[in-house]
């Protein structure tokens, strides 16, 4: 097992390369730019294709083209760039094209700043573009997972033929941690049933998202919703710690989940029954697992997030408001401080 020190933004590129991605199209934006830098250096060394696009609209549409041709496409950006990509991602969902998009979130709205935040939750998890679609969203919380979840994202994107996000933030992108390389690389195969690859086998194929007939589009939408229901049933993932006896559960993803973990450990030392519920998939949200916890006699959920309750809303929906959901957050580019979480825990445990 080869372990080295690595930056999160490089780990996602390594994950993509091991997952068989051979096309990267991207545009610079802090704090995601190292993904672009690493891709520009590493993809061509393996004969794989890298192109700096003229804009995020162009990069996501280049992804659309290469994905339509059956290839494993990869791009990364941050909030403002993701906003620009939403059109293309909606088209990908409509045309059932797989792609992996990394969002290294920064603080918004507008130009905001380049500090870490989790304010893209809604625009990523809920779809963000026009129409009735939902991408799969994975939320790593370490440099290792930046790589591992990128690989998983490719697997899921192709299994379900849907755009899939790795949703991280400025801290996870910029930080360095020990990292173990994957053991085996994937050699992708073009799916001749779906791709338009300029080959005899794929000449009959069509990639489109237009259905002029209302009934046809209705049917297609029904089919998509069935697919999303299957994804919800089969793919939801969560990491739970100390939840069995807990009467306060911290709910957090990404970098916030690491702060929450520290808080939980501290609270346990104080004798408080605190657990951690960390969604690994934000879509599908781990609804059933959350519902089970809501059945505890005494339970307060605390959503620890660097956004304005965007995830807390999903949590309330998941548990059908059966138990109180408190919010601990911090906006603007600063991380949540441990004291904030501890205060909320102590108040809830009273």
């Amino acid at each position, binding site marked *: 097992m080869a372990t080295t020190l690595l930056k999160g933004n490089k780990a996602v590129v390594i994950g993509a390369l091991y997952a068989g991605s051979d096309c990267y199209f991207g545009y610079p934006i802090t704090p995601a730019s190292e993904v672009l830098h690493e891709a520009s250096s590493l993809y061509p060394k393996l004969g794989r294709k890298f192109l700096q*696009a003229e804009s995020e609209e162009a990069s996501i549409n*280049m992804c659309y083209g290469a994905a339509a041709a059956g290839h494993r*496409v990869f791009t990364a950006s941050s909030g403002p760039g993701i906003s620009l990509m939403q059109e293309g991602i909606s088209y990908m969902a409509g045309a059932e094209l797989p792609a992996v998009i990394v969002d290294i979130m920064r603080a918004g709205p507008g130009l905001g700043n380049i500090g870490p935040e989790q304010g893209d939750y809604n625009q990523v998890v809920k779809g963000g573009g026009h129409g009735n679609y939902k991408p799969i969203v994975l939320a790593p919380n370490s440099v290792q997972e930046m790589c591992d979840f990128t690989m998983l994202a490719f697997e899921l994107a192709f299994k379900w033929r849907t755009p899939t996000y790795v949703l991280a933030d400025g801290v996870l992108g910029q930080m360095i941690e020990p990292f*173990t390389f994957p053991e085996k*690389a994937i050699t992708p195969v073009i799916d001749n049933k779906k791709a338009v690859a*300029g080959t005899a086998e794929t000449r009959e194929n069509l990639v489109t998202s237009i259905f002029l007939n209302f009934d046809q589009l209705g049917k297609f939408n029904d089919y998509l919703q069935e697919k999303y229901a299957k994804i919800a049933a089969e793919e939801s993932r969560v990491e739970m710690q100390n939840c069995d006896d807990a009467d306060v559960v911290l709910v957090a993803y990404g970098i916030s989940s690491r*702060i929450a973990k520290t808080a939980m450990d501290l609270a346990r030392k104080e004798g408080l029954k605190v657990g951690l519920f960390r969604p690994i998939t934000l879509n599908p949200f781990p609804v059933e697992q959350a519902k089970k916890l809501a059945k505890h006699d005494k339970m307060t959920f605390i959503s620890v997030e660097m956004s304005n309750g965007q995830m807390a809303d999903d949590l309330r929906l998941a548990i059908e408001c059966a138990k109180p959901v408190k919010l601990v957050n911090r906006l603007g580019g600063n991380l949540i401080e441990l004291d904030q979480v501890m205060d909320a825990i102590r108040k809830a445990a009273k």
Partner: protein
Amino acid sequence: MEEKIIRTQGIYAEFPRKGPSAAPSATHYCPGCGHGIIHKLIAEALADYGLQDRAVVISPVGCAVFAYYYFDAGNIQVAHGRAPAVATGVSRAQDCVVVSYQGDGDLASIGLNETLQAANRGEKIAVFFVNNTVYGMTGGQMAPTTLIGEKTVTCPDGRDPLTQGYPTHMCELISTLKAPVFVERVAVSDIKNIRNARRVIRKAIEIQKEGKGYAFVEILSPCPTNLGKSSVANNEWINTEMVKEFPLGNYRDNTATAEPIVRAKSDFTTESLEKLFDIANIPATIEHKDPNFKESQVKISGFGGQGVLSLGTMLTQAAQAAGKQVTWYPSYGPEQRGGTSNCSVIISEDRIGSPVVYHPDLLVAMNRPSLEKFQNDVKPGGTIMYDAIIGDVKLPEGVRGVAVPAQELAIQAGNPKGANTIMFGVILGLGLTGLPDTAFQSALAASFAKKPKLIPMNLEVLAFAQKWVKENVK
């Protein structure tokens, strides 16, 4: 007499993609529209050159959104204006012949950036630009190519350049760029023009067959429905009025000198990846469990260029060498240019929570602004190491201060460039991180791995700093 039907090559015999209720062999285009002729010319060229099994035809948004009903080749339908970007993606991913088919609103308005950028990169695509001076599918609005004085539903009094600007000349614009191989404007307004258009379209397809690069063909085409003219009048108008604004002719032809563009073949093997990352030479993971190991939270801060981030990474490497959990997190972006920069390092036995240090056990301050910014955050009983060059300081109570004359010590140690290593050695000498000497030594070796000659010299500096701490710091 036997009836003989000559079918157009490259076009489907019937068009089932139109849906079940529509007439199976009629197009969706209006009578007198130019798209049918242009489709036929492109499709025949693809068929004649034997390219249908290699071709990908991209349908835009506009009346030609349904081009995939007709072309007997691989078809991709795309978002408004983005065909050149999609074409780029296809062409980069796959060695094939890519045709991008676009109208005037799509290509010259919403997609102008993608159009010019793809042309400027010399992408291997043939772009067919149908210019009929009007938005068709959306109901006759003004296009970038609408003539001055021409009436549309959004310029009902005629296009006025003072408020709506002038017609956009795409062939002229694209021929200012270096990369395009071929640029020509043609028309399908009469038999003579159609014959010429056929010749030019075939040339653009031939360039793709040979993989030579970007070809752009603008086609002046009738839209009797939205122009409110008869088909005959529309074609006459093209030949008399439109060609004055958009002169027919060749704007670029480098086909004789252009060389085929060859893209690399993707390598997916594990072996190549392992070679790329030099995995054979990465040392195996060390796990060294010590239940008494105390977590250290370190903040290092100074001017950009003072080695703040690299001192942090050296400490990170030392922790990694000792088999500890470790995180390094920098200030990033504009903050690191010009102003002060800082990084957080946490070394622990257990999985680390937040990697950002707000209350350090050890603050290393390389300049006064950093010292003043962070000194009050240091934990009670913590340590502040600062560069002695800062001069007089007033540190908070309950915190130990260590002034390190880093530059002076580096000179004494015989390595004037070694101030950073001095600081590193003082951290070791103070024993604040609980990491062994060997960890610091291997971290130094790792950070000078690319200049191995400097390793022994820096090891000496490290030892010198350790000795200095022993003799000078209480």
